[in-house]
């Protein structure tokens, strides 16, 4: 559109999408300390006609791994998710491995979702070991043999970018993501470790500076065009 109103609309359109983007960048910052959080990028596409559309993309790159002293802390060092089941029976997928022993002695997430098919931790256990392939073993006392309690499953998706955001740091499968498929013989699981978020502070700040510049520039454009508009309307006055 080749008139003043069109310019104002494009400026407003750009300013509001930049503001949306600011919200997503802020969200990544807010989740900087969330375990296993994957940062979300708001990608903007400028069409030939000058209008903007946006798409959300999740960055599934590996977050850094921190060592903890809690034996139930599990990090995934590689691609994949741990399936967890809600109290109502719904299955979702998470990379936040800060587990605990919940009621009835089962291994659970922080918000009481069951890990895998249920791994019962005996309450008199001397030592719990989680192996890199996800098997959980227990020693009853320092001299006994290791007893297998169960396996923390690890699943992968054909297209993990197609996953949709679920509840509380979990993901849900969708048509675009494909079915979850169980990974066997892997060595991705690390005990006594937590994956931190993969939010890149420097990139986020650079992105914020860029969108701020664009937002201010578009607002300035709106002001310039508003002046021209005024002058065009009041062309009869000197």
């Amino acid at each position, binding site marked *: 559109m080749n008139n*003043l109103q069109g310019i104002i609309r494009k400026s407003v359109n750009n300013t509001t999408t930049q503001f949306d983007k600011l919200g997503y960048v802020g969200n990544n910052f807010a989740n900087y300390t969330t375990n296993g959080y994957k940062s979300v990028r708001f990608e903007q596409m400028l069409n030939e006609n000058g209008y903007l559309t946006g798409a959300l993309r999740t960055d599934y790159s590996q977050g850094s791994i921190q060592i903890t002293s809690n034996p139930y802390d599990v990090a995934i060092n590689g691609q994949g998710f741990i399936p967890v089941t809600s109290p109502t029976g719904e299955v979702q997928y998470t990379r936040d491995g800060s587990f605990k022993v919940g009621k009835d002695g089962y291994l659970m997430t922080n918000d009481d979702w069951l890990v895998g098919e249920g791994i019962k931790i005996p309450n008199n256990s001397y030592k719990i070991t989680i192996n890199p392939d996800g098997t959980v073993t227990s020693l009853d006392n320092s001299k006994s043999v290791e007893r297998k309690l169960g396996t923390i499953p690890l699943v992968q998706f054909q297209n993990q970018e*197609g996953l949709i955001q679920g509840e509380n740091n979990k993901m849900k499968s969708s048509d675009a993501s494909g079915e979850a498929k169980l990974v066997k013989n892997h060595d991705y699981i690390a005990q006594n470790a937590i994956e931190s978020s993969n939010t890149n502070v420097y990139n986020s700040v650079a992105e914020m500076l860029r969108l701020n*510049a664009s937002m201010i520039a578009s607002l300035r454009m709106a002001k310039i065009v508003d002046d021209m508009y005024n002058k065009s309307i009041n062309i009869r006055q000197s």
Partner: protein
Amino acid sequence: MKLNAGVRYMDNGLITSLKAMQVQSALIDMSNDNVTGFDKVGYQRKEPVVSAFTEYLGTDGLSTTVDDKVGRLGNSGNPLDLALATKGYFQTQSAEGIKLTRDGRFKLDKNGNLLTLEDAKVLSSSGTPIKLSLIPSDLKDIVVNAKGGLSVFNKITNKLQHVADLGVVNTDGALVMNPEVKQGYNEYSNVSLQNEFLGMMPMIKAFDANRQMFMIESANLTKAISQLGSSS
């Protein structure tokens, strides 16, 4: 304009001023597109071309060319973000036909098709959509070299498996032999905001000047009509 009393007034003076104002606002519109495109991946600056006789033709005398200088490259870390460090375009195919773009933000779907963010298929140098037979669980296993060759690391054979060459073409439709594809980078336009805003100053001033001319002509015309039209 011919007044009733037979006085010839400046030919089309008012219209010429109005046309000039329209031309200036159309130029501002192009600058505004550049301002909007400033942080958009793959955007190329539009440059207005003011042809001869635009003072008579008005906005019909305007056209645009694309400034094809390579823009700012920024690291993104995503293996499927590709940028071209040379002149050229990726080819994409959608229901609307084949398009050229410098926006190299690609993704894979669950069948292994290489798609743009708007779900158009990315074409190879042989003109067919690129499809990965082996879908890697980690995007880091996808390697794109500077010539645009896309390969996937096969964990079973421990070798890079060649998939396709990206079809990078220039505006004539000919393949670019050495496209200098950068993996993990995005190209953030070639617009510089300060130049856009500085370039707008003369446009605004020209707009104001023509408005002033219009008002002077209008006042003169009013004066001529009222004086010549009075009976005394």
